[in-house]
């Protein structure tokens, strides 16, 4: 086993989580919890794959995925922002809806064969760096590089720009933001849309780059939920989100690759000789998410870092308090 190869593939599969996590982070920073990530990712993965098959152009696929997932996210936005319903239940229903729609429209796609995928390439100079160059900059999908750019951009946008300040205000203290003339409702709709587009991009990253194809619900396999967990672990900070996403990506890869070789660290590989032990490996990402949540929650309690104060609450003009 060559660990640089595992990490290289881990970065690619971590990019899926990265997009979904950053998207959810934007939505939550605006005060809207969207538990529909899994559904939006499925819609994205399905529409990206389906469009690419129909047109032969993966870029059109990516754009359709982002647009379709963004539109789906607006159902949630309407229900929780305008109709002021419970965000938890609405988000759940969005996951159901997205899963159902992608299964119906994706019928038969799993047998559709191969499509032209997004290009992979290496970055000329950076790829020469020993070890790191191989892991990060050699033969990666273009979306992986988009991910590298997204992290600092998201951080800078949220923490150092005026619209980012407005975004935080809307999530922390919407009535104050409203008093300053920020349109709380419009901002929330917009960032839910951003979250939806990024979830769609995450889905497209799966079906057009990381593990190409459409495998119904197994396409995402719960990664949307892991992304929501990662937002809590990241304490709503894009850079921590990136660390978490890549670490999880590497873990997922490691689990796949550890079952291959005959020898593991010089011993007979138990996972090779008893394949059913692999089910314990399959549990790891999910168990790890729970562990990460415990760590994140404890740290948040200790440092008194909280979620955006208005997260989960509808904003109603003229009402006291939040």
């Amino acid at each position: 086993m060559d660990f640089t190869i595992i990490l290289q593939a881990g970065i690619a599969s971590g990019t899926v989580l990265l997009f979904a996590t950053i998207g959810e982070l934007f939505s939550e920073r605006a005060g809207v919890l969207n538990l529909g990530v899994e559904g939006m990712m499925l819609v994205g993965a399905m529409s990206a794959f389906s469009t690419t098959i129909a047109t032969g152009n993966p870029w059109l696929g990516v754009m359709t995925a982002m647009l379709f997932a963004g539109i789906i996210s607006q159902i949630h936005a309407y229900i929780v922002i305008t109709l002021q319903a419970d965000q938890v239940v609405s988000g759940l229903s969005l996951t159901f809806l997205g899963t159902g729609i992608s299964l119906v429209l994706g019928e038969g796609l799993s047998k559709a064969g191969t499509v032209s995928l997004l290009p992979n390439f290496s970055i000329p100079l950076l790829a020469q760096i020993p070890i790191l160059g191989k892991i990060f900059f050699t033969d990666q999908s273009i979306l992986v590089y988009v991910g590298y750019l997204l992290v600092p951009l998201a951080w800078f946008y949220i923490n150092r720009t005026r619209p980012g300040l407005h975004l935080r205000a809307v999530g922390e203290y919407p009535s104050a933001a409203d008093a300053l003339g920020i349109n709380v409702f419009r901002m929330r709709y917009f960032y839910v849309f951003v979250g939806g587009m990024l979830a769609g991009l995450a889905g497209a990253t799966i079906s057009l780059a990381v593990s190409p194809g459409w495998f119904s619900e197994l396409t995402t396999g719960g990664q949307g939920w892991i992304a929501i967990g990662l937002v809590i672990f990241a304490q709503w900070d894009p850079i921590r989100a990136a660390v978490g996403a890549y670490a999880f990506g590497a873990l997922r890869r490691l689990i796949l690759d550890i079952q291959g070789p005959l020898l593991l660290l010089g011993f007979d590989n138990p996972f090779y000789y008893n394949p059913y032990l692999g089910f314990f490996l399959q549990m790891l990402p999910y168990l790890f998410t729970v562990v990460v949540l415990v760590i994140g929650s404890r740290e948040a309690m200790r440092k008194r870092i909280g979620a955006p104060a208005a997260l989960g609450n509808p904003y109603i003009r003229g009402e006291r308090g939040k």
Partner: protein
Amino acid sequence: MAESTALNKKRSPFRIRVEPRLSEPPAWYPAAVTFAALIVALILGGVLISFAGGDPIRSYQHIAKASFGDIGVLSDTIVKATPIILAALACSVAFRMKLWNIGAEGQFIMGAFGASAIVLAPVLPAETPRIIFIPVMIIAGMAAGAVWGFIPGYLKAKFNVNEIISTLMLNYVAVAWMNFWIFGVWTEGGFQMSPKFPQTAWLPRLLEYAKTFPAFRGLTTHLGLVIGIVAAVILWFIIFRSRWGYEIRLIGDNPHAAQYAGINIKQNIIWVMMLSGALAGLGGMSEVSGVVHRLQTAPLAAGYGFTGIIVAWLAKLNPLVIIVASILFGALILAGREIQPSGVPKMIQGIILVCLIASDFMLRYRIVIDRGEE
């Protein structure tokens, strides 16, 4: 007058305002809104089906005929509804406390596993009489489900870990855990299932009494239905007639008031999660012992726990209404198996839930129409 203003178009003849309801709506109103939401959902579902190239009217006709058409399919519908009843009860008790247990699916699977372990380990020999076998399996299933509910409950109470994510993650862990036992330990000749249970570990079914009551011939409705109804009635009493139920409702409605009233919220989180898990586990037991008769992944991890979420919400968390709502969804799942494209039932479930949540707005707000005069 109204006509002239309308023609003038300077002022519209009436204005529609939305304002919060200050008084409770009449008792029939929520039921009517829920019913209307269901109708809207079915219409939207029909539109989407025709987009996907299906025929909505044929699909719905098919659902009705294939699930309520005659006594045989009605019995099959009830069989499908049974696990949903228990899963929905599990969700409803947790949701009542605003505890978002999304893990009924995993707790259901662990319940099926716990009950199966009694047969397969084996804890009890195959010759054990049914009257002992079934109760032991029930206890084991509920205990396994309760353990699976305890973990997120404890993490929530102790470390404030978000229960939505933790329960959901444990669903995936439960599936992998069951697969390990099915593939690695209890496999039947390398196939992806355990050996069939001895008949003494089966819940009694109606068809067994066909000799005495010929009408029961071929009906697979099993004792799980009775278990589900009894559980629903008991849960109704707990929620609406007991002190504990009052605490649960108070915590759900107003946690601050509950805290000031001296209610131990953390302890309640753990207990309610365990009760919720035990109910879902009971559902798993009923399904494995009443229908599947062996430990097998596909028919057990079939999403009953997730359907339970929608049903609980449709029934407004009322345990008795859950029974009716479950039968509706049992019909949808049963008939949906033959509908093309195959994702249709899942999509309709999603649309129903979306419409239900949106319709809550009509309960909290009322629409007032002002006539033109001011």
